[in-house]
């Protein structure tokens, strides 16, 4: 499901409610049933055998069962409860040194073998125009293995009534604290993926993710002004335990932030009060400021200005027609001294971080996952690469970041978790702010836009606080900052220590044609950037 279809389901797009078009709806009880492993093995073997017989030199097959549950509410009303399931098989092959892919929703050995033969036929048709033969980094078959997201409570097993009750309490809290409107949703994901390849792997994975997006709006009918404040939680690679609201996971301050446990009622209460305050908050004076960026905000800046430019397929030009290319070209990397950021900046990639959206045991081409450096002491040191790209950057093995968002889509290089290491010296958020003369403290993600080579960007937020002479003076509005990626990361002057390290994330990282989404997390602690250009986004109509 992409972002637009989610908006349709959630009813926050065009104001309508519709079933998702990428999945079929099912009864809630089915969401807890496991997939049948013996059938998966039979289907996988049928596909691999048919592909080899048709002339494939390599084949992999993914038998996928993708489950979503949505509980959608507004004010004191349940708007929709939808359970979706999408089941099918995707077969990817190499024939005549060329990729081919076909998929089917028919779960019979005959249909799956037919898909495999289709994939080989497509590879052969395209091989005529192929100028770059596929070269795969080796992977050792792992035999039959399995992996599961380490959840404590399976969100799919929690009764619908409990979910509805929680969202009603959330919405009531918002309405009691000054909200004119409130939308809140549970968006729960379970990917059951069975991967097999001609390398000799049979990998069964059970992946869980949860998210509770919320938007609170305050309307001043007299002035016609309206302002919204979105929830400060993030999607997580966790189970229902994320919604326990454990006090020990709260970060106090100008507003409460949450680490690995979310108190949604508290956040709704604060959101309503802050949305009201936004209606009368003074407008920012444009200029150059020191920015203190909370992890709920900085995660998206990392995503856009580090995660994307270091995707090797973008760097090489494979995404030129859609997501774009990258300023971080191979010649810059080869110098081993390209200063991506200041010497404080250490950025790493991983597919293993606990609670993260990207964490899996094996990627979608059967590679065991790991952690690696992208930027070390400010210098660009590596990219994100999969099996058919590893040789280009002199790597002996894939980084293990290949992913497809459905059985029906072909897997390709996707962004792993990309995170900023916390500072090594002790520094709290309060100490950081105490040192700022003229700055803005930004919490939450707002609008975000960046060019197709990832130079020029502009970001907004949810909450903006003016800092004068080391003190927060109050909420301000209409803030967006513009910068250039390299200039911005070189302006990084302080990073809080690991006590403030938190994960943010998104369900909707988009790339590829046909467009696919991927869920990815970004960790960081509160970070300071100096002398950044801030614009005022207020305009008047008519």
């Amino acid at each position, binding site marked *: 499901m992409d972002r637009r279809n989610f908006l349709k389901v959630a009813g926050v797009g065009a104001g309508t409610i519709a079933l998702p078009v990428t999945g079929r709806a099912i009864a809630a009880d089915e969401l807890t049933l496991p997939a049948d492993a013996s059938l998966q093995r039979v289907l996988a073997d049928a596909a691999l055998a048919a592909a080899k017989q048709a002339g494939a030199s390599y084949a992999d097959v993914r038998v996928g069962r993708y489950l979503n549950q949505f509980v959608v509410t507004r004010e004191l009303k349940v708007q929709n409860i939808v359970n979706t399931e999408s089941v099918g098989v995707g077969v990817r092959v190499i024939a005549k040194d060329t990729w081919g892919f076909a998929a089917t929703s028919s779960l019979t050995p005959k249909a799956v073998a037919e898909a495999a033969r289709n994939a080989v036929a497509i590879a052969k048709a395209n091989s005529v125009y192929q100028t770059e033969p596929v070269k795969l980094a080796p992977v050792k078959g792992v035999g039959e293995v399995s992996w599961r997201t380490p959840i404590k409570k399976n969100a799919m097993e929690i009764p619908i009534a409990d979910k509805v009750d929680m969202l009603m309490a959330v919405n009531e809290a918002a309405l009691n604290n000054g909200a004119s409107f409130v939308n809140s949703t549970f968006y729960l994901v379970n990917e059951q993926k069975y991967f097999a390849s001609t390398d000799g792997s049979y990998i069964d994975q059970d992946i869980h993710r949860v998210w509770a997006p919320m938007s609170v709006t305050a309307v001043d009918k007299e002035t016609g002004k309206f302002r919204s404040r979105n929830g400060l939680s993030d999607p997580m690679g966790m189970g229902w335990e994320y919604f326990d609201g454990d006090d020990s996971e709260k970060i106090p301050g100008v507003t409460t932030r949450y680490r690995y446990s979310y108190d949604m009622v508290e956040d709704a209460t604060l959101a309503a009060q802050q949305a009201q305050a936004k209606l009368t908050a003074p407008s920012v004076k444009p200029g150059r400021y020191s920015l203190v960026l909370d992890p709920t905000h900085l995660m998206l800046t990392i995503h856009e200005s580090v995660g994307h430019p270091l995707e090797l397929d973008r760097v090489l030009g494979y995404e030129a027609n859609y997501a774009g290319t990258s300023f971080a070209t191979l010649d810059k990397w080869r110098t081993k001294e390209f200063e991506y950021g200041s010497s404080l900046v250490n950025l790493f990639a991983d597919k293993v971080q606990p609670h993260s959206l990207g964490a899996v045991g094996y990627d979608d081409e059967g590679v065991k996952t790991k952690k690696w450096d992208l930027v070390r002491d400010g210098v660009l040191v590596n990219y994100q690469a999969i099996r058919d790209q590893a040789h280009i950057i002199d790597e002996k093995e894939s980084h293990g970041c290949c992913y497809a968002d459905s059985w*029906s889509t072909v897997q390709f290089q996707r962004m792993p978790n990309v995170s900023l290491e916390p500072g090594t010296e002790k520094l709290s958020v309060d100490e950081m702010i105490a040192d700022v003369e003229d700055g803005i403290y930004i919490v939450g993600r707002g609008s975000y836009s960046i060019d197709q080579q990832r130079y020029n960007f502009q970001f907004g937020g949810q909450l903006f606080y003016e800092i004068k002479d080391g003190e927060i003076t109050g909420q301000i509005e209409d803030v967006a900052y513009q910068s250039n990626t390299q200039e911005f990361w070189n302006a990084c002057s302080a990073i809080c220590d690991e006590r403030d390290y938190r994960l943010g994330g998104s369900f909707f990282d988009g790339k590829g044609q046909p467009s696919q989404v991927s869920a990815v997390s970004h960790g960081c602690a509160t970070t300071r950037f100096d002398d950044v250009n801030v614009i005022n986004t207020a305009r008047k*109509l008519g």
Partner: protein
Amino acid sequence: MTILNKIAARASLEKVIALSIADGCEANLEGSNIGNIRYARNSVSTAGVTEDISLVVQCNFGKKVGTATINEFDDASLAKVVARAEETARLAPESPEFMPVLGPQKYAESDAFVTATAAIKPQYRAKAAAASIGPARENGATAAGFLNDSASFSAMMNSEGLFAYHTSTNVNFTVTVRSNDGTGSGWASSDDNDVRRLDVAQTSGVALQKALQSREAKALEPGKYTVILEPNAAAQLIGRMFFSFGARQADEGRSFLAKKGGGTRLGEQVFDERVSVYGDPLDKRVPVGTWNQSGEPVGKLDIIKNGVVENLFYSRYWADFKGVDSVPQPNNLIMVGGDKTQEELIKNTERGILVSRLWYIRALDPQTQLYTGLTRDGTFYIEDGEIKFPVKNFRFNESPVIMLNNLEELGKGERVSVFGFPVVMPSMKVREFTFSSLSDAV
């Protein structure tokens, strides 16, 4: 295989409806065959075909609603899916905004299915890629493109006797050509129901020409400029505005179409009087289905006429609540254009910027419809009626509402695709378009 004809679709749905004992039952059946090819670096990268079909059954007891589905069609499976939907409905809390299923409706026939498109084979896609890659390579450039074709059907039936059926095809082609020195980039697209009207080589040629012309761009100071937006650039910005044409958002005071003190701007002059936008499923340029997911007929609808807001979209629930007729959102958009070609618009321009494409557009403020984004793949300086030189890309911060009040001239309409919806959009000349900074991106 997954494209059921009308008789087969009706027969499957009749079985489903007959099995339900709920107060209301509605079933939707959809299937599609999709094929695509993707190329980059002057070489084919991925290609594939996907087929899928699904049956969704929604049952309600009063305002308690449940949904279930299945992709097997034997009698036992159909009985199972209906029983599951009914069970979920019994367990669900009441949905206060649920509307009972509609009675039978009359729908116009829209001719959106083209057999030639449904019959596209892998060889066609491979040849299309070759027709794009060859000229790029011969001209010192690199092509990356994507061709996606689909044939699909959708059908619905409910317990009040409503039946609807629609088939459609689509083929969409986009291509980016970059000069091998990395200083020039061009993009072009074509979108149609009928593959016979698609000319991949011609579309790709436009992108190649832009790539070569946009090399070694000069930097201009950011600021307010007269711009000529090509149809695709205009559509990407203007198309977003229609997400805010919901009556409920406006009535609730959280839309740019809400009025101070309450009420909406329905019937008011909000745009330049040359601005007219409507939806029409039977328009031959952009044929689409004539019903929506609730089974409501979707006909021709004026949204903006001569700058006046003629209609806001009313869901069935909101229409009932407000005591008015529902107004379904159109499945396509057509903005009325002028007679002039883009070249003629350029000829009449003393100083301005030609914008081929806008990219990464994001909302800044729903109150003013302010968006930010960047130009991309061919941005040129115009002086004394001629394109003088390519310019570096800009970031813009602009509102389509302000833009459609600063209209200078409209060109001819062209079919483009916005979020997968077919749109006819003219090229347009607009004054005082706000560019806020420069980008080094090519």
